[in-house]
């Protein structure tokens, strides 16, 4: 059975189901009780699990550090950072603590912690409330980076992230919290590290991250008119990266476009493009092209924002370019 849920509802359902299943799971973050989080993902948890939700003062390093310690002591914290931009206030806890503990202790430590990160442009909040920065965390060994694009994947991946014995940076694009999609009933989980072919095609592969998946699917429909049969791969997990699925697809189609909303420069799309270049060079019939935002801070004015966030025409243009 399938039900139609919003992205937020799917995340909320995953949290409720996992907290019901496992008493070691708790939620910690700013405004997570009184307001249910800025995007209502933690709504209702305080009523159902009052002992396992902690509303904090504004102290991201403290929140993250508490998560690390509780995780090392056997709990499963789900940390909410109100806007992913604020994770920069807790970088030591993420990068030097959570990510390093298992390795530095020779495998003694486990840090089963999920860090939920509402990210990207949403309401127009400009440069300090709109960042993505997936690649910052991809670069750190010991961290997993997960980016769901649909409500179904959001639920399945959050459940897997909560059950993972290692830290997961869970990117939630704010613009798709209200998007709807089908979510399977039951204990629906999706393994971390598996990309998904969302649309099969023969002429070109578009590897997309987060909201760029839906835009790529729309672009693929438009590209049919130009005679291009485009395959769309949702990366879903950026670390570990499913290089096998991505490279198999590109080797088959011979063309690759990699799309992310973040700046392409040293971004997640760049790593994927490099992997394709290294592994698929002899099958490629054209350059690997990235679609992303220009390397600028997010501006405020909507008239400026629309020149920053990549949209469907950027994808169709890129595919047409590599097919030439």
């Amino acid at each position, binding site marked *: 059975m399938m039900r139609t849920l919003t992205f937020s509802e799917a995340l909320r359902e995953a949290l409720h189901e996992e907290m019901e299943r496992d008493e070691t799971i708790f939620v910690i973050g700013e405004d997570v009780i009184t307001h249910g989080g800025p995007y209502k993902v933690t709504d209702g948890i305080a009523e159902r699990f009052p002992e396992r939700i902690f509303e904090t003062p504004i102290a991201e390093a*403290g929140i993250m*550090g508490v998560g690390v*310690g509780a995780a090392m*002591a056997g709990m499963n914290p789900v940390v909410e950072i109100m806007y992913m931009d604020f994770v920069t206030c807790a970088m030591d806890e993420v990068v030097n603590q959570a990510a390093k503990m298992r390795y530095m202790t020779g495998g003694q*430590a486990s840090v089963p912690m999920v860090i939920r990160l509402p990210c990207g442009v949403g309401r127009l909040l400009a440069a300090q409330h709109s960042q993505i920065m997936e690649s910052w965390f991809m670069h750190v060994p010991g961290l997993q980076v997960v980016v769901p694009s649909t409500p179904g994947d959001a639920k399945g991946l959050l459940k897997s992230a909560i059950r993972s014995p290692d830290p997961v940076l869970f990117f939630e694009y704010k613009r798709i919290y209200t998007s709807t999609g089908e979510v399977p009933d039951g204990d629906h989980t999706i393994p971390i590290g598996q990309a998904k072919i969302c649309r099969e095609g023969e002429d070109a592969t578009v590897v997309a991250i987060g909201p760029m998946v839906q835009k790529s699917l729309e672009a693929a429909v438009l590209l049919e008119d130009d005679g291009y049969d485009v395959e769309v791969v949702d990366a879903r997990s950026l670390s570990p990266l499913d290089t096998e699925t991505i490279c198999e697809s590109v080797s088959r189609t011979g063309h690759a476009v990699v799309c992310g909303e973040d700046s392409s420069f040293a971004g997640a799309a760049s790593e994927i493009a490099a992997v394709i270049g290294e592994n698929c060079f002899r099958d490629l019939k054209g350059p690997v092209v990235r679609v992303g935002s220009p390397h600028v801070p997010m501006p405020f004015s909507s008239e400026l924002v629309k020149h920053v966030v990549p949209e469907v025409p950027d994808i169709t243009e890129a595919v047409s370019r590599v097919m030439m």
Partner: protein
Amino acid sequence: MALSPELCKKMYTDMWRIRLFEEEANRQTSLGSVVGALHMYCGEEAVAVGVCSNLRDDDYVLGTHRSHGHCLAKGAESHRMMAELFGKATGTCGGKGGSMHIADFSLNMLGANGIVGAGIAPATGAALASKLRGTDQVSVCFFGDGAAARGTFHEGIGLGALWKLPVVYVCENNQYQQWVPRMNVAVLDSVADMAGSYAIPGVSVDGQNLVEVHEVAGEAVERARKGGGPTLIEARTYRFYGHSLGDEEQYRSSEEVDEMRTNHDPIQTFLSTMMEQGWLTEEEDTEIQNQVKDEIAEAVRFAEESPYPTPDNVTTDVLAPEQEVA
């Protein structure tokens, strides 16, 4: 925990274990067997031992970059620690941590830490875990006076106080943050005075006096265990060596160091107390020191004879071996 002759002998032995372990590690560094930074705890032994002598095996301890003492006081095995300093496969962390990252999870010693002040919030988190599980385990976080300037001190203690968690914050105020005298860069002389900001008890204690540290820590651990919330302890102490090996120590006089070594050595101070109380004979003292010397010699032998980790270990322990994904 009330003082008994048996406990006193154990504490005295533990202080010697720390002292001789480190002096040997220091010597092994000069021989080239131990590489990397070595932050000596010598001079501060009464703090680790005085605090940890109040702890149970299942209580949590988080340390600093200067944590050989915390690990040994919590019960870590000196031969595996020495092997870790040698970078050997048999080390506490399999040669992946080194001096600044020794951990022994079998003792709930959740790790030394190379980042100043980074253990305070995780210790608070471990205490939150105890509270959530409904156990009466206590967490202890050691940190230096330099850490009291960090935001993590404020955020970590703030959360521990807010939720009245079973945690004891132990500041080892050794008067110097790396190469800078503390009062060149601090406003408050006593870190214990900062406890008022969090509405928790703050106590300053002579960190060279084992009996005093043991008693102050005992009260704090008891309060934490009974649900009374955190305590901030400032142990005023002194490191006999520089910040790390090779430190030229231009920021303090040799007279000052000599005075502390001569008149404020925690081991000698406690020895006098024990002798006065009739808790230790000279023969027992000699026996204890010989026993510890043997332990440390054995630790070196173990470290020397142990193999180095094999190259395949480079890529293990990054993530759990089998990802639980569904």
